[in-house]
């Protein structure tokens, strides 16, 4: 090692910009919003629960369970792969910033992770979508059902947060106990993580290149997924946080970050739908109805509620779970496992009887522009986001609704 203090080169400075510190959440929100528009322009918007369901269906297919024989293998499923790449991208982001470590929490936390994951799976299959498909993408897609799903989420988060506080008060032993940390990248010794980060990133580009011959869309999904995972990890983009923190510590940054992404997405999605951009052979109407699911209103609100409870207990929504898996948080490994194991079962056995029970008027596709026109729908969604913004900022100052 040379003795003199060297000024780091411009490229090293650039690297520092991205990986020395966490990014503000709104930077994550904006860039994720842009990538979400790109996904829609290429094919269809961002979603996460469908991909995790695909992982689980493949697991049961390997076990030879006949209900799941028809599941597309992960390497051919766009959303299955998108989820894989979010894990890998977060893994790369954590390595580049030497934040990767296998962190094993006390056993009570692992159980909560698994149960939370299972609840998210049930919520996502009943409510058709998760915090990504039916919120971060669904709300900009001008879906009335997504707004109802979001209300369900809110209620679920508040209830589960009450539970967490009760648990911490009455049963603190649940979240205390022996924990382990492996492979941490502290200090100079941890520099291997940066090299590992480059190897992981380069391999993903090679994989995208291999796909590009036969499946250009998949190649794009791979690269976009990789960046999405990395952005999530660096900005700690967390939708549970956005919903929960105003009611916990009163902090609003997480919420504002998510709103930034929603507004960018709203502008892009509205344009794509209005002009039918990228409709290809499909009809203009099919393009308009993309990511508008038949869950308005009861199906959405029940699903949203269960999902909200699950994600708060697990400490990560579908995508928050995925990127924390890549970062090495073992509680979220348990959550992902619960999610992927329960999701196909719920879809196969819990959802069909519920669907039979619900009349059409409680589970239909509600496309806001059908009722309000494009301008009206756009204005309504924007107004809801602004109202939420005013609420969290006001609450941040006054602490009226926060627990601490």
């Amino acid at each position: 090692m040379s003795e003199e203090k060297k000024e780091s080169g411009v490229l090293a400075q650039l690297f520092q910009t991205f990986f020395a510190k966490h990014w503000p959440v709104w930077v994550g929100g904006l860039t994720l919003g842009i990538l979400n528009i790109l996904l829609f322009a290429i094919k269809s918007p961002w979603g996460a629960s469908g991909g995790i369901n695909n992982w689980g269906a493949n697991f049961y297919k390997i076990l030879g369970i006949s209900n799941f024989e028809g599941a597309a293998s992960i390497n051919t499923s766009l959303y299955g792969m998108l989820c894989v790449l979010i894990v890998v991208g977060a893994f790369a982001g954590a390595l580049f910033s030497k934040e990767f470590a296998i962190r094993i929490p006390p056993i009570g936390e692992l159980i909560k992770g698994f149960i939370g994951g299972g609840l998210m799976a049930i919520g996502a299959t009943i409510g058709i979508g998760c915090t990504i498909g039916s919120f971060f993408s669904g709300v900009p897609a001008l879906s009335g059902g997504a707004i109802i799903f979001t209300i369900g989420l809110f209620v679920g988060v508040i209830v589960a947060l009450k539970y967490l506080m009760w648990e911490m008060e009455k049963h603190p032993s649940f979240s205390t106990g022996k924990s382990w940390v492996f492979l941490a990248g502290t200090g100079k010794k941890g520099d291997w993580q940066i090299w590992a980060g480059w190897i992981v990133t380069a391999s993903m580009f090679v994989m995208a290149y291999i796909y590009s011959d036969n499946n250009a869309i998949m190649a794009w999904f791979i690269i976009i997924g990789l960046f999405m995972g990395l952005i999530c990890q660096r900005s700690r983009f967390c939708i549970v946080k956005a919903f929960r923190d105003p009611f916990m510590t009163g902090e609003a940054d997480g919420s504002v970050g998510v709103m930034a992404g929603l507004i960018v997405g709203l502008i892009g999605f509205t344009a794509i739908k209005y002009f039918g951009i990228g409709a290809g052979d499909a009809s203009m109407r099919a393009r308009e109805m993309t990511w508008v699911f038949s869950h308005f209103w009861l199906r959405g609100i029940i699903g949203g509620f269960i999902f909200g409870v699950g994600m708060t207990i697990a400490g990560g929504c579908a995508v928050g779970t995925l990127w924390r898996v890549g970062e090495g948080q073992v509680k979220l490994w348990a959550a992902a496992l619960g999610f992927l194991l329960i999701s196909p079962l719920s879809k196969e056995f819990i959802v069909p009887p519920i669907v039979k029970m619900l009349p059409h008027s409680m589970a239909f596709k509600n496309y806001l522009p059908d009722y309000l026109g494009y301008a009206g729908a756009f204005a309504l969604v924007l107004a809801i986001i602004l109202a939420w913004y005013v609420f969290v900022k006001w609450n941040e100052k006054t602490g009226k609704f926060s627990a601490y």
Partner: protein
Amino acid sequence: MENKIDQTLDCKGLSCPMPMMKLAKAFKGLNSGDVLEMLGTDPGTKSDLPKWCTKTGNSIIREDELEGGVFRFLILKK
């Protein structure tokens, strides 16, 4: 110089939101001028804690990286 420490909060292995919830709860039981030592491994705490301090008026008086991916904060109660 070694700082005085009134209470230690071990959040190793825990992920969001448990460290911040435990911290906020522990702070309720402290007196003004007390120092809490927090040990943790969740990278999220590194951005959550300074924001929480700015909001609550408590201050971080020391931040260390320990071996094995553990970080340590000393936080002074307002």
